[in-house]
């Protein structure tokens, strides 16, 4: 099972600090598809961070990674 941290409006859509995807391993692209399918969250402009670094669509995620969904940032 992969735990995915959520922030800002994604946290509100997810109803909590994180969501779970019942897989042992998948790519970033697949993760976003699962999020969209299972939680009906629009992920077109969402990035994924693996272990606190931005990841690319083909990067692999395992259940030992720290994973987060990063919506467009608005700090500063």
């Amino acid at each position, binding site marked *: 099972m992969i735990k995915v*941290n959520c*922030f*800002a*409006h994604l*946290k*509100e859509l997810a109803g909590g600090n994180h969501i779970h995807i019942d897989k042992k391993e998948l790519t970033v692209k697949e993760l976003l598809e699962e999020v969209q399918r299972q939680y009906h969250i629009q992920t*077109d*402009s969402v*990035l994924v*961070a693996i272990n*606190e*670094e*931005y990841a*690319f*669509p083909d990067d692999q995620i395992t259940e030992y990674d720290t994973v*987060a969904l*990063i*919506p*467009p*940032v*608005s*700090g*500063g």
Partner: protein
Amino acid sequence: MFSVTSEPLSIEEISNKVVRPEAGAVVTFTGTVREFTKGKRTLYLTYEAYASMAEKQLKRIGDEIKERWPDAMTAISHRTGKLGISDIAVVIAVSTPHRKDAYEANEYAIERIKEIVPIWKKEKWEDGEEWIGDQLEKSAGIPEKEEIR
């Protein structure tokens, strides 16, 4: 030198981090909460951060500055939580031997913060509230690789 904190920020304190005998110029940028944006009155803002990653990204901006302006020294702090009008959200301090570089590097830092640092603000108006970011045209779609790492 790079922090995300819920405590109030002090310009003096962050500027002092980069003062050194080799530097003759310090430029600071302070982002404060503006009351009106496009005619709409803001009551307060709430900043949320993915703090551990945000600090890494701030440090990375410092590294990028070091690459482009080798003599520059950078310190950045970003605040989180609820902020009222004129409260300080971010302070960037850059010192350099010569002033031109300090202005340029500082402006580079704020632009990069708005691109890559995982911090979000929610605006609270009289008639509602909204997380900012998703609405931005320029943020639509996944950024190019060069932009994010």
